[in-house]
């Protein structure tokens, strides 16, 4: 990883910084993403929100990386239009089947 110093107008820096805060990212990540797109280089995903959404980072890791609580993490996922992590379809089906069976077979108190 190389360090790079970039000079920006104050107004551009302020606007970019505002955008970054609003979208739970950083100017560094925005520049990396745009440069990678420009030169068609695939970057490993480092955005904690995206990693959490893809199931590559667990909840506590994402909360720690972004220094936010779980409620705010869910808010930011929604604001970015990112999916909530979910179990694979077959595992969800098995779990839902088990749940329905337990409820249907349970005796009354």
């Amino acid at each position, binding site marked *: 990883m190389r360090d790079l110093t970039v000079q920006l107008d104050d107004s551009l820096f302020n606007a970019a910084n505002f955008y970054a805060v609003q979208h739970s990212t950083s100017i560094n990540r925005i520049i990396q993403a745009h440069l990678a797109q420009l030169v068609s280089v695939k970057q490993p995903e480092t955005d904690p929100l*995206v990693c959490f959404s893809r199931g590559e980072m667990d909840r506590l890791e994402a909360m720690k990386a972004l220094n936010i609580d779980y409620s705010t993490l869910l808010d930011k996922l929604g604001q970015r239009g990112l*999916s909530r992590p*979910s179990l*694979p379809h077959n595992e969800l089906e098995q*779990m*839902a089947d088990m*749940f329905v069976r*337990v409820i249907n077979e349970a005796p009354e108190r």
Partner: protein
Amino acid sequence: MKRVALVIPDAGPLISLGKAQSLEILLKLDLPIYIVDQVYFEVTREPSFEDAKIIRQFAQSYPDRVNIVETQVGNLARMEREINPSAPQRQLGEAAITDFLSNQLDKIVEPLDPVLLLFEDSDLTRMNVVLRQNVHLLSTKALLIGMERLGVIASEAAIWEAIIASGRTPSDEIVDQSAPATYGGSYWQ
């Protein structure tokens, strides 16, 4: 009421269902609901937060159905807060869950009665635990799917979407495409 215990040892489902204004759907299952004390404290400790208000109101509105179960970890944490209100108490929720499963579960259910442990989907993707035969892990999403199959809610998708939508800004600006579903695998017995 059915002889099945719904135990919520995780803040995630409370926060998610609270955000969707859907905690009351849990009452439709006609089961006793148990929330681990330290988890309840963690999700309600900021009284000005909307989620905290909703969850507290839910627990207080249905005291005959929603039980806050005491754990040794929760009691110790409470005593520590009384001595030092600013004491950092990170990760105690997880310790309380372990305490509850190891030492308290038998006090609230008969040995063979089924127990459903409700966790957030994101946590179950990496959870690797061994549980007794009558104790079952259940994710928030699987709970909703099952409730739709049981006919107690009209649409799991509507509630799932409400959870997601609760986090959107009024402008609903979308800057990323939806990510694919998680395929990290999970393991339970």
